[in-house]
């Protein structure tokens, strides 16, 4: 640390008019924006889908946006989305959401069974069949 500071001062003396450009070494150039934690992200989305008067467009927009992220949504977010489908009398979207979760897992084949296991009470309560039960999981 000390040696490079001396070098820097030496360099500064060579280039006379450039003193303002020598950055102090102690500060890193990271952004100062606040990073959202995973829990905040999850609760934000759960709240989004929990809106009682969520309309069909907002459900589609929310779901398509969520699928666009580089992550597989937590079961609690999906639970909230499935209940929103129930409020909107939209069974097809509920099944589609489960298909999308499986697709988002990609090569990690343990994620989808875990999600279904977590959602099983909700699926049974609302009467949502999984794609496997309907036979559309394969061609």
């Amino acid at each position, binding site marked *: 640390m000390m040696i490079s500071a001396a070098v820097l001062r030496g360099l500064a003396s060579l280039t006379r008019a450039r003193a303002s450009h020598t950055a102090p070494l102690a500060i890193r150039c990271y952004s100062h924006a606040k990073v959202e934690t995973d829990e905040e992200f999850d609760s934000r989305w759960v709240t989004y889908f929990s809106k009682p008067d969520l309309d069909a467009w907002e*459900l*589609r927009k929310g*779901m*398509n946006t969520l*699928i*666009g992220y580089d992550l597989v949504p937590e079961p609690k977010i999906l639970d909230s989305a499935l209940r929103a489908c*129930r409020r909107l*009398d*939209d*069974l*097809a*979207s509920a*099944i*589609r*959401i489960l*298909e*999308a979760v*499986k*697709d988002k897992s990609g090569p990690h084949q343990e994620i989808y069974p875990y999600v279904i296991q977590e959602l099983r009470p909700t699926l049974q309560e*609302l*009467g*949502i*069949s999984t*794609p496997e*039960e*309907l*036979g*559309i*999981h*394969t*061609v």
Partner: protein
Amino acid sequence: MLASRALVRGLQSGFWRRVSTSSGAWAAHTHDVDVLDCSAPQYNNRLDTPLPDVPFVRNLSAEQKKLKEKEKGPWTQLTKEEKLAIYRLTHELSFSEMKKGSKEWMTVLGGMFFFFGFTGLLVWWQRVYVYGDVPHTFSQEWIDKQTQRMIDMRVNPVHGFSNKWDYEKKQWK
């Protein structure tokens, strides 16, 4: 156009056949207009957009409307076939059908090779029937004299041509 209309009628002959009656596509089919209204939301099958903007089937028959009414009640009372029918009303292809892929690449590759071969035939014919004789400087006699001359003037003596000629034994190394 005619082929797709025949296809639509063929599909409609089955029970719950999946026919897109979403307004844009249907208008194009029934009024024989090739213009799709691109300002209206369209149905699409995309993995990254799981919930499309409009359902696949918009103009529901009476039976389909009854099914939609039943959907408003508890879903536990729907049979598997009814759930599947509801799914197919809104979505044309399931995820696995979307990801299926086709054998089209074989056709493409085969077509490529066919045209490569055809071009090869044309090139061969051109070489034989269009091109004239090569210059006389390609004849064996000329090349022999040329090679001897190159050896005599020590062309590329370090690493190249003359380096490969053994001047003592008067032969190639």
